[in-house]
């Protein structure tokens, strides 16, 4: 089951096989299957981004849709107000705008908001995402209530194009997460999760690391949001600032194994049988969520959480409930 414990060569071979399978998948797949796969990759990228702060550092954000929505709106408004003829250039500029906006937001709110711990950080992020959503729909400048139309960037087979875009983003976020995990930053973030008061005594610059992890998480989420805006073609506040996305991202990560590298990606795939196929049965979207949210959390929780890092289980009181104010 766990590819991470097998010998290195087998792991590399498996990854290569998976990568080739992902790359050639569009050749044979129907447009519907491609859209489904695209949604999976979308969720995988978001969950991996959330995991950098939520999984490694134990800072559970309940409001990552703030970054998703901001990235989408930044990209959409950018392409609306700066007419660029070349569609690819327009796309890239949109991505830069989305990623730039979310990274700046993370930089601005990061210092004050990361002083909050546990549930207070979670609630504050929820508040940030709700406040941004309200502002985007109430302030005319952002056009969130009416919606922004995003001009198409490809004429032929947009589902193929966006499949590769989201594949690229998911792969990039996985690579970033892997690099972070085995860099000094990753060990520092894990130290913060295990004991934030002891970490600085061991020379971990906790504030800087948390901020950096937060910004990375925001950057990836913003890029995904920008790509999402282009793939939707028309966005409103309700289609991108969605609280259910904030929560689903956590569900995906928990199902796959929080704090692990493959977990968030695998967790999103877990939702495939319950979450996506029933679309054909004309069930509404929330009905799908209820199918996967509860049985998953009740049945799989134990073995999935047990698969996360060994240290995480040994603690009885999780960081979310440590309502200490720091600073």
């Amino acid at each position, binding site marked *: 089951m766990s590819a991470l414990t097998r010998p290195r060569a087998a792991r590399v071979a498996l990854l290569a096989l998976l990568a080739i399978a992902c790359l050639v998948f569009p050749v044979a797949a129907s447009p519907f299957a491609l859209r489904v796969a695209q949604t999976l990759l979308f969720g995988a990228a978001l969950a991996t981004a959330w995991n950098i702060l939520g999984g490694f550092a134990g800072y*559970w954000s309940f409001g990552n849709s703030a970054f998703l929505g901001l990235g989408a709106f930044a990209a959409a408004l950018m392409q609306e107000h700066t007419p660029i003829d070349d569609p690819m250039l327009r796309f890239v500029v949109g991505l830069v705008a989305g990623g730039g906006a979310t990274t700046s937001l993370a930089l601005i709110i990061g210092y*004050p*908001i990361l*002083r*909050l711990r546990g*549930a*207070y950080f*979670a*609630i*504050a992020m*929820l*508040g*940030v995402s*709700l*406040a941004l959503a*309200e*502002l985007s*729909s*109430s302030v005319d400048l952002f056009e969130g209530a009416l919606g922004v139309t995003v001009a198409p960037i490809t004429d032929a087979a947009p589902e193929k194009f966006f499949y590769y875009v989201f594949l690229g983003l998911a792969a990039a976020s996985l690579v970033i997460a892997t690099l972070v995990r085995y860099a000094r930053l990753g060990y520092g973030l894990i130290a913060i999760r295990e004991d934030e008061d002891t970490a600085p005594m061991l020379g971990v610059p906790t504030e800087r690391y948390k901020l950096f992890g937060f910004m990375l998480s925001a950057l990836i989420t913003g890029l995904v949001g920008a790509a999402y805006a282009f793939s939707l073609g028309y966005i409103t506040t309700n289609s991108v600032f969605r*609280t259910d996305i904030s*929560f689903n991202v*956590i*569900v995906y990560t*928990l199902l796959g194994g929080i704090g692990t590298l493959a977990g968030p990606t695998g967790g999103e795939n877990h939702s495939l049988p319950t979450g996506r196929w029933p679309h054909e049965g004309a069930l*509404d979207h*929330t*009905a799908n*969520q*209820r199918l996967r*949210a*509860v049985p*998953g*959390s*009740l049945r799989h*929780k*134990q073995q999935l*959480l047990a698969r996360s890092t060994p240290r995480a289980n040994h603690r*009885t*009181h*999780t960081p*979310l*409930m*440590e*309502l200490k*104010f720091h600073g």
Partner: protein
Amino acid sequence: MNVLIQTLVDGLLQGSVLALAAIGFSLIFGVLGVINLSHGVLVILGAYLALVARRILGLDPLAALPLVAAFSFAVGYIYQHLVVSPAIRRANLLSSLLVTYGTALIAQNVLVLVFSPDFQSVRPHYANDFWRLGGITLNLLQLVALAASLILITLLYLILNRLPIGRTIRATAEQELAARLCGIDIERIYALTFAIAAAFAGAAGVLIGMLFPFSPASQDDWTIYGFVVVVLGGTGSASGALLGGLLLGVIGTLTTHFIGAAYPNAMVFLVLVLMLLIRPAGLLGNALGASR
């Protein structure tokens, strides 16, 4: 001047109901440490139960309130016992988030199936009566809601601070281990606390059903108001929730009147974030569960 006073009065009237709606969320968070994401469902369920009572029994919502509260009490007890508690026992406190979130989705969709996704209301016939008092308009229905909220919040205060069960609940919130060592059956106290919280949420739901239109999808809002009230007032105390609710109401009506009808929610969430940054334990500090 009159406009300002009228706005403040309206805010306080609305705020008392918000306080009652959030008090259960605050109690569960303070005592169990669980962020109950299905709290809004318990509130909306109360409104639907009042609707059922009116349709089947022909009861006025206010007369149905005790029945709804009793039913919600049972729902809360069973829910904690069968769903939330096993999840916490088998994994950890965090898993309660997922379980309550999943339950909220299930319940919302069941409500849609049973009652349709349309907006409903249990407005009574006296809803439009009002008095004028020195230039201030006082809506009878809002006064009734205020009185009911204040009575119920006082009742919770008395339960928590005067009755033996309240003492046990507060002791459990303060130090679970010590309470256990004193021979307290923690599981039972948790289930009772959850049940009391659900009963208050259901009662609040009845008042909300009388005041505002409601639909299954509006459950989110009531969970989020729970968050805001907890952050403004602090967890686990009746007075904190009352203060938080009143503030929330006043902020809402002041913003609507002086900034614009589109902004009350944006303002409330900004206040939420600012409050967390400045004084995360709430205005009154943490009455219960300060150590969590």
